């Protein structure tokens, strides 16, 4: 149907060794809520030290996928692995390596910043003294040290998100999931958060899965997974996905990919 032009793909960032264990591997995952299918045979990998954007409209199945990766939902079909640890078989080892920022806010608004961080550290079995040191360090990094004792309720939306990211890093995970973390933030806060997370990828080698429906958050060197109505329509380095869709940019590529899918009047 489409006519992909064979263009050599430019490589902005060095790709990790393909033989290495992926940070996240999703393998043939399907999920249904009763009759309604939310995910159909989804498979893709996130490599360590890479930024993978999971692009999809609202209702594409991004949040369902996140709930499965974080073990909130039981896996119905397929397999999910985090650094080779099967999330169903050894959830403890898998979750230890995972940090998550959920789309809805999950901070305790009435507790202070430090209290929120200490609670999270306790959930990971990090003893109090170590937890206090790490909390202070992370608060300094996100520029909220002087707010350490104030209630989370008094923070701005962007500050809360930064705190949630700091919290997700407290137990030093090697895979970080973020579910539409910039929704509802102003331009400045968005830019801050994106650059912070990209820094984590390049400086600390963390593998990032970033779910979004905002095209401008994706950069040429990223890996891209296009999710639409519960199916993966395209995946690979962003440039390749765009070229193969015969488009100039992500926006057009996305419209082409999903438009073609919507037309035949969806089965099942």
């Amino acid at each position, binding site marked *: 149907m489409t006519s992909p032009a064979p263009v050599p793909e430019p490589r902005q960032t060095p790709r990790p060794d393909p033989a290495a264990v992926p940070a996240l591997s999703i393998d043939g995952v399907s999920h249904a809520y009763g009759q309604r299918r*939310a995910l159909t045979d989804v498979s893709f990998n996130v490599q360590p030290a890479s930024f993978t954007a999971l692009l999809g409209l609202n209702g594409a199945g991004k949040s369902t996928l996140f709930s499965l990766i974080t073990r909130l939902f039981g896996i119905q079909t397929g397999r999910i692995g985090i650094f080779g640890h099967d999330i169903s078989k050894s959830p403890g*080892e898998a*979750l230890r390596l995972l940090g998550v920022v959920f789309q809805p806010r999950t901070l305790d608004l009435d507790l202070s910043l430090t209290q929120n961080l200490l609670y999270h550290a306790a959930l990971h079995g990090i003893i109090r003294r170590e937890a206090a040191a790490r909390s202070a360090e992370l608060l300094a990094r996100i520029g909220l040290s002087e707010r350490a004792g104030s209630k989370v309720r008094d923070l701005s939306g962007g500050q809360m998100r930064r705190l949630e990211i700091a919290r997700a890093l407290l137990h030093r995970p090697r895979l970080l999931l973020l579910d539409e973390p910039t929704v509802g933030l102003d331009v400045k806060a968005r830019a801050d958060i994106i650059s912070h997370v990209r820094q984590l990828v390049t400086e600390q080698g963390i593998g990032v899965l970033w779910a979004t429906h905002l095209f401008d958050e994706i950069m040429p060197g990223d890996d891209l997974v296009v999710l639409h109505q519960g199916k993966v329509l395209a995946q690979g380095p962003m440039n390749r996905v765009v070229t193969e869709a015969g488009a100039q940019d992500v926006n057009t590529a996305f419209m082409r990919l999903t438009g073609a899918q919507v037309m035949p009047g969806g089965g099942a």
Partner: protein
Amino acid sequence: MSSITTREAPRGFSLQEYMTCLTGIVWREGLRFLHQRERFVSALVRPLVWLFIFAAGFRQVLGISIIPPYETYILYEVFIAPGLMAMIQLFNGMQSSLSMVYDREMGNMRTLLVSPLPRGFLLFCKLLAGTAVSLLQVYAFLIIAWFWDITPPPIGYLTVLPALILSGLMLGSLGMLISSGIKQLENFAGVMNFVIFPMFFASSALYPLWRVREGSPYLYYICQANPFTHAVELIRFALYGQINWISLAVVGACTIVFMTAAIFAYDPSRGLARRGPAGGEG
């Protein structure tokens, strides 16, 4: 470049990690409780209304003979105090468990459940934390009740503690099991009508069971089979430094059964799915 990707061997969790997690969860629940004054006040007002108004009115109607653990004639207020303590725990257990299953506390449950520690252990910690909150409520009630001439022996305040922990765990587990298992009871009004009231009234909380037996033998058997009756009796005896072995056995066994079943039945997708995208019908 890919030096970070080697898969490490599973290392499990140390006892210290378990304990850190447990204390962290109880600590947070305590902090939250301190911030929710309305919840505290309403948890106290309920039993106090029973104590100040209901008991005062019924004092003349109901005569209480001397039954263990009491050694003298007692006022009706004194008799129903343990039942009201158990009632505090019943309400608290149902409330906190309901919020664990349905979405009110879903954000917090998400944070909790991505902890790498075993899910059963996390839920146990959560139940224990809920029980700890109910202990604060019960002791606050006991302090006020003391001024109302409900004065158990001083040692009773200590000996009742293990009884309260056990009954709190039993009622919290029951609440969690019910809210996981019965879809129709997803709001508190349903739980009040179909769980709290029947359990409370068909028990030894308000009247001694020998009196119930005089009125209706069938009701008597129902009361005997009601685990809440045994929670009340366990607390009643413990408050006077004694152990009611039958009640202890029943409450202990029920706690184990309810908790195991509740942890097994717990499914966070139940609370989340209804909020999922595209208005799916649950």
